[in-house]
C-alpha cells in the first residue's frame, strides 16, 4: 500500500466512522438516559436516506431536502416517543426488544408502500461534486470531506449541548438518577421526548448525508444498526465519548480490513469487539 493510498483509506475510515458516530450517538444516548434499547434506530437512518431521495427528486435542492428530512425525522421522533416508547419506561428489555423490532417491520412496510422496493440513488449536489487531487493519479471527492466536516460539527454541537448547556445537565442528571430529577420539579417526560427526538434526527441526518454515496435500498437500516451496536458496545453502553472513539475505531478498522484482509473483512470488527470486551467487559468508557 502506498502512502497516498493509505492516506485515502484513513480518510475514508474516519469519514465512515464519523457517520457511524452520528447514528450511534442517538442509540447510546437513548439507552444511557432513558434505559431504552431501540432496535428501530437503524430504520431512522433508512428513513432519512429515503426522505432525502424523495425530496431531492421533487425540489432538486439537496439543502432543502436535508432540512425537510431533518424536520420530518424530528417530528417522527416526537410522535414515536409520545405514543410507543413511553409505554416502555417501566418495562423490561424483552418488551423493549419486541416493540422496537415490531417498529422495524412497520418502518420497512411503510417504506415499501410509499417508495417501493427498487434501489434508489441521488447524485452528489453540484456544488460538492468535485474532487481534490492528491497525486497525479489519485484524488478525493469533495462530498466525502463535506460529510466528514458536517459530522464533526454535529459531534461538536452534541458535545457542547451535553457538557455546557442546561439541557445537557438535565440529560446527564436523568442518566444518573431519574427519580431525583423529578423531585427537583423537572418534567422528565418532556426531557425524554427531546432526547429521543434528537437521537432520531441525528440518525436520519446520517441517512440524508449518506444518500448521495450509497444506494438507497430496503434493509439499509438493519445493516447500519448492527454496526452501531458494535460501536455502542465497544464504547460502553450509554457513553457518548465512548461511542465517538469506538465509531472512529470501527470505521478505520473496517475500512482497512476491506483493503488488507478482504477474505475476512466482514468479521474483523466483531473480532475487534471481542478483543476489547475481553480486556474491558463493559466497553472502553463505561460508567
Amino acid at each position: 500500500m502506498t502512502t497516498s493510498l493509505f492516506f485515502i483509506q484513513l480518510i475514508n475510515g474516519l469519514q465512515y466512522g464519523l457517520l457511524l458516530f452520528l447514528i450511534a450517538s442517538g442509540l447510546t444516548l437513548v439507552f444511557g438516559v432513558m434505559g431504552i434499547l431501540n432496535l428501530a434506530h437503524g430504520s431512522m437512518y433508512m428513513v432519512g436516506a429515503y426522505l432525502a431521495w424523495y425530496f431531492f427528486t421533487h425540489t432538486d435542492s439537496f439543502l432543502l431536502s436535508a432540512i425537510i428530512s431533518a424536520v420530518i425525522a424530528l417530528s417522527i421522533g416526537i410522535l414515536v416517543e409520545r405514543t410507543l416508547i413511553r409505554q416502555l419506561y417501566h418495562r423490561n428489555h424483552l418488551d423493549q426488544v419486541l416493540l422496537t423490532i415490531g417498529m422495524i417491520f412497520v418502518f420497512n412496510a411503510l417504506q415499501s408502500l410509499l417508495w417501493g422496493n427498487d434501489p434508489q440513488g441521488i447524485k452528489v449536489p453540484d456544488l460538492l461534486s468535485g474532487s481534490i487531487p492528491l497525486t497525479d493519479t489519485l484524488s478525493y471527492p469533495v462530498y466525502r470531506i463535506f460529510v466528514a466536516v458536517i459530522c464533526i460539527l454535529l459531534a461538536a454541537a452534541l458535545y457542547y449541548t451535553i457538557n455546557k448547556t442546561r439541557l445537557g445537565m438535565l440529560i446527564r442528571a436523568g442518566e444518573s438518577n431519574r427519580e431525583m430529577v423529578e423531585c427537583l420539579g423537572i418534567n422528565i417526560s418532556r426531557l425524554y421526548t427531546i432526547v429521543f427526538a434528537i437521537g432520531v434526527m441525528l440518525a436520519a441526518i446520517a441517512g440524508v448525508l449518506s444518500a448521495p454515496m450509497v444506494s438507497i435500498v430496503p434493509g439499509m437500516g438493519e445493516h447500519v444498526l448492527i454496526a452501531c451496536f458494535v460501536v455502542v458496545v465497544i464504547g460502553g453502553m450509554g457513553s457518548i465519548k465512548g461511542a465517538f472513539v469506538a465509531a472512529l475505531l470501527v470505521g478505520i478498522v473496517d475500512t482497512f480490513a476491506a483493503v488488507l484482509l478482504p477474505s475476512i473483512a466482514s468479521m474483523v470488527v466483531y473480532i475487534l469487539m471481542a478483543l476489547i470486551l475481553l480486556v474491558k467487559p463493559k466497553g472502553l468508557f463505561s460508567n
Partner: protein
Amino acid sequence: MSTLLDVKSLHTLYGSSHILHGVSFSIQPGQAVSLMGRNGMGKTTTLKSILGLVTPRSGTVTFQGEEITQKETWRRMQLDIAYVPEGRGMFHNLTVKEHLQIAARANRKGEKHWDYERVLKTFPRLQERLNNLGTQLSGGEQQMLAIGRALVTNPELLILDEATEGLAPLIRKEIWEVIRTIKDSGISTLIVDKNIQVLKDLCDQHIVLVKGKVVFDGSSERLINELETVESYLAV
C-alpha cells in the same frame, strides 16, 4: 393561615405488602414536624406517598388546599415542595455547581430567597469543591449539597429523609444547625430522623409510626411528658 400539608388516611402497598394503614397528619405553615419510627415502619413510604413516588391505594394528600394525590411528582415539586432523599440522591456525572444550577428556580410567588451564592455562604465547604462531581464528595458534603439543591428551589415545605445518617458527630451537628436556620427562616420542614433528643428541641410537632400506623401525634411538650412511651415505640 390554612394548613400547609394535609395527609388523610393513606393506605400504601408495595405489591401485596400493605405498608401504610391509614396514615393521617398535617403540617401548619412554618412548622417543623418530625416523623419517627423504627426501620420498616413506613416513614420513607409516607414521604414517597406525599411526593408521588409511590401511589397510595387510598387516602388523600392536600397541599396548600389543593389535592395532589394523583399529580405527577414533578408537578407537586413545582408547588414548592423540596426533597432531600435518604442516600442524598447525588448525580454522579454532575459537578457541585451543576447540581445547584439545574435545581435553582424562583418559587410560585416569584421569590428567590435562596440562590447559588447563599447556599455557598451557608456551606462554605462546597465552595472549594464546585467543580467536583457529586459522588466525589464526602458524606457530609453530599448532604450539604443535597440540602442546598433543595433550598435553591425556594420551597415552602422541605422534606428531609435521614439527613444525618452515617455522618460523623461534628458534621451531624453542623447539619442540624443548618436545619434549624432553615426552620427559623420560615420554611416548613418534615424531618425523618432517629435522633429524638435533637428533634424534641427542633420540631414543633412529632409523629411516630409503628407498623404503618400513627401511634403518636403531638407537640414537643406532649412528647417530653410521654417520652418513655414514645421511646418504647422507637426502641429496637
